[in-house]
């Protein structure tokens, strides 16, 4: 039960960004995947959980530390480790059966034996009758079933699932999740351990024996939660709900208590990641919070169900509201602050002024841009300047995204103007 299969010891990984600066993605991460367990990795986007999964798949090498598979160092993709991809990664020109056979074919297995095993796997995952179909003829859920069959036909010891349900609609994702769990509990598959990377908290709590919460910049395991409930679990049961609440709490807590003690105040820096939340979403959630039945206070999991935002989106929105001082977060609950209700009651012009002031005070990146513009004699600067600054701490896509958010907030708060075509930021022309 406790034999380790994959062991990561003090793993470091950094990526080189376009301008050559190395950026740490994983910092001294220890992790052990043991026989008989399902582990879920949760965390913000960009926290390195996908990187960790790819390291275990042998797709990416590490910069420091050790990766062992069954006690042997792992240098590349291993036969006993299989993977299910977020966007399915099926070969569109191969039929379902050929897609499922691909790994067996690569091993050089006899065609007849290959077909027999592939058909069995297709049957197991409930796709019988679609052997000859091309992936483009199938719906998203069925495509992911092909992806799962392709992984299972290899009879893997370890199954890695990279956001396997996040490209599917909620119902389809849930059905697929339950199907995999029933294969797992009935021992219909020889798989000894499953690692799930997800940003859906419910998925994680419903499946995993252990949930690891990742912190970002650089990524490390921030919290670990054991869920000793038997499978299958009931979403509606009190105990599952309370675990979901706990995980929400872990996700919204700024840092662990230990870290908070170490650094008196975790203040945002210029180059830090910003929550991925547009102004319209912020306002929508704030208004929802102020109305019945919440009247200023809500449980995040309930709010998630009500708003139909994904967990990741809602957490980002909540973090942004908290950052701007419009709400406070405490272990899975969000409460509107007096400032937040003032904002809610204000007219459009006052709202913008209030928003601007808060952004200027609490978002160093926006303040930095504004100060730069005020000091620049011409009063306009190119966005690339700030993008380059962000590249020191964030990867390319993330830097771009963070700058977009900063620009949107700053524009809404009348702090500066931005020309999309030229990429130039400038101070607002006074009317």
């Amino acid at each position, binding site marked *: 039960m406790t034999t380790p299969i994959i062991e990561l010891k003090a793993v470091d990984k950094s990526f080189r960004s376009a301008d050559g600066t190395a950026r740490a993605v994983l910092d001294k991460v220890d992790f052990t995947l043991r026989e008989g367990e399902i582990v879920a990795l949760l965390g913000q986007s960009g926290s390195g959980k996908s990187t960790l999964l*790819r390291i275990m*798949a*042998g*797709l990416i*090498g590490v910069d420091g530390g050790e990766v062992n*598979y*069954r006690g*042997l*160092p*792992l*240098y*590349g*993709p*291993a*036969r006993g*480790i*299989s*993977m299910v*991809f*977020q*966007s399915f*990664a099926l*070969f*569109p*020109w*191969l039929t379902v059966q050929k897609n499922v056979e*691909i*790994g067996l*074919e*690569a*091993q*050089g*297995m006899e*065609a007849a034996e290959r077909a027999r095993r592939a058909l069995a796997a297709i049957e197991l995952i409930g796709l019988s009758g679609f052997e000859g179909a*091309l*992936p*483009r003829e199938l719906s998203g859920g069925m495509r992911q079933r092909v992806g799962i069959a*392709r992984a299972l036909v*290899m009879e893997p010891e370890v199954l890695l699932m990279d956001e396997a349900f996040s490209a599917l609609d909620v119902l389809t994702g849930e059905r697929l999740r339950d199907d995999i769990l029933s294969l797992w509990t009935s021992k219909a598959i020889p798989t000894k351990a499953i690692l799930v990377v997800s940003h859906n908290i419910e998925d994680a709590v419903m499946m995993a024996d252990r949930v690891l919460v990742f912190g970002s910049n650089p990524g490390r395991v921030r919290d670990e939660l054991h869920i000793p409930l038997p499978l299958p679990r009931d979403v509606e049961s009190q105990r599952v709900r309370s675990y979901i609440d706990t995980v929400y709490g872990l996700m919204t807590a700024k840092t662990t208590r230990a870290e908070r003690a170490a650094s008196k105040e975790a203040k945002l820096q210029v180059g830090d990641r910003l929550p991925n939340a547009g102004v319209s979403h912020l306002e929508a959630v704030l208004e929802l919070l102020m109305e019945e039945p919440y009247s200023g206070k809500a449980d995040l999991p309930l709010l998630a169900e009500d708003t139909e935002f994904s967990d990741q989106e809602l957490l980002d929105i909540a973090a942004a509201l908290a950052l701007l001082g419009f709400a406070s977060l405490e272990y899975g609950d969000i409460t509107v602050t007096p400032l937040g209700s003032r904002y809610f009651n204000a007219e459009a012009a006052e709202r913008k002024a209030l928003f601007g002031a808060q952004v200027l005070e609490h978002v160093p990146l926006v303040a930095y841009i504004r100060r730069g513009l005020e000091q620049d004699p011409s009063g306009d600067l190119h966005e690339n300047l700030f993008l380059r600054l962000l590249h020191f701490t964030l990867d390319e896509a993330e830097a771009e995204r963070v700058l977009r958010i900063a620009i949107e907030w700053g524009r809404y708060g009348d702090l500066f103007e931005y020309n999309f*075509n030229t990429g130039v930021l400038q101070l607002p022309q006074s009317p």
Partner: protein
Amino acid sequence: MLNPKLFFPKQVVEAGGNRWDWALLPLILALLVLLAYGAQQMARPYQVGDTIPLSLDPINLPYYLLRTTLRMFIALAASLVFSCVFAALAVKYKTAEKVLVPLLDILQSIPILGFLSITVTGFIALFPGNLFGVELAAIFAIFTSQAWNMAFSAYQGFRTVPAELMEASRVFQLSSWQRFWRLELPYAIPGLVWNMMMSMSGGWFFVVASEAISVSNQNIKLPGIGSYIALAIEARDLHAIGMAIGVMLIGIMLYDQLFFRPLVAWADKFRFEEAGHEKMPESWLLNWLHRTQRTQAMAHSLIRMLERSFSRFRLQYDGTSVRARPQAQSAAAQRIWDAVIAAAVFYAVWTLVHFIHSEVGWSEVGRVFVLGLYTMARVVVLIFIAALIWIPIGIWIGMNPRYAERIQAVAQFLAAFPANLMFPVAVMAIVRFHLNPDIWLSPLMILGTQWYLLFNVIAGATTIPTELHFAAQNFGLTGWLKWRRYLLPAIFPSFVTGAITASGGSWNASIVSEYVSWGSTTLKAHGLGSYIAEMTSHGDFPRIALGIGVMCVFVMGFNHFIWRRLYRMAENRLHF
């Protein structure tokens, strides 16, 4: 009822095949016979100096068509193999990529005729006493007009294989060989097929030049449509030219129906984007092939052979093996390789400078550069004029989908039509009306390449979202404002794509179109193209090399400083 199985011998009863097989049989047999005959004719004994009998009798035209088409298909097959090998090497080995990609960039800006004049002697020496050497030279010339864009497209395709598919291929332990056939090549196929069609059209343009080879003042004319046309031009026989055009059109139609249509329809299954697609390309021949039993079975056994090779070339170890341990890319080796490349480039430049200094002299270089400027002015003006004409027409066609399809087919046909067949008409007109060849020969340059502009503008206009169209109507956008704010930005990216191809083609075509003859009349426009053509007919190798080199510099400069920038701008800002 009689059971036929009892009456006929076993081989007949169990031979399989259905009526579709039987109906296909004559077609296959005819193709095989033609192939065998053509191939046999290609390898006849031949000594330099012999004249190959050619006649203007139209009865020979089908035979000439066969020879020319055969050459073009051999060249196409060679280009395909070249493209795959090139792309596979460039993608797999970083060190190779550093050399191969710039090399291809240079190669594709070398005018095609340049290759011919330089390589033909070598090919003849390769097969002494046989016509095959000359054939190879011609095929090589056609190859050079077809291969580069195909190789680039394959390289692009291999490079842009989606990351998750690449990861899947690694997780499931595909070896390089398996990955090539299962992932990289299929992913590149749609682009490759499209470029094959372009290449085939481009090849026709140079058929005349590649079949009628002049080497060291020897005139070798290989049997083919190109030589027939060359002969007709020498003899001022308009009737023969008309016949040649007619036969060529038939040939183009035949291989379009028998080869490219089925190929395009087949390649559709390799489309990667899974989004809705208006309509699938269809081909009667492919449908027919799908209905056969025997022919299908043969294709399947070929595929099975390929699949059997997969088990031979498979990965022998996985990620737990020491052999998978990443070999640390030693920085020193990397630097040594960079140094080698730098040294080679340095040496090449030095040799070039030395060569120019001793063989042609610097004043000649200056003169050729000025000639290059003339040709550049022509290219720029012509692209501008072509844009003025084709953008409005293309937008109109693209926004009227009812016509778009039909006109697209006609335009594709026109693009395949070798524009140099119109040259005699131009010469006669210029002589008759005493026009200035410097101006009036120029339009010939763009005759063949303007279609790329039209295609791309049509394609761009068809992708304008309907909402945008309605919005523009709703806001009452009219006149110049409508063009500036709505239509031009909407088609800009596709226009740039078309203009890149058109300008490259026009440079290439300048060699043929600035120096045109009709019988004994030769018209010449001042320009780089006519310089190269003239030097080629004199057999002056140093000056040919100089002309080609200068044209290379112009084309690459054009690509880097103008087109790529416009392209990047279009990519970043103007798209839906």
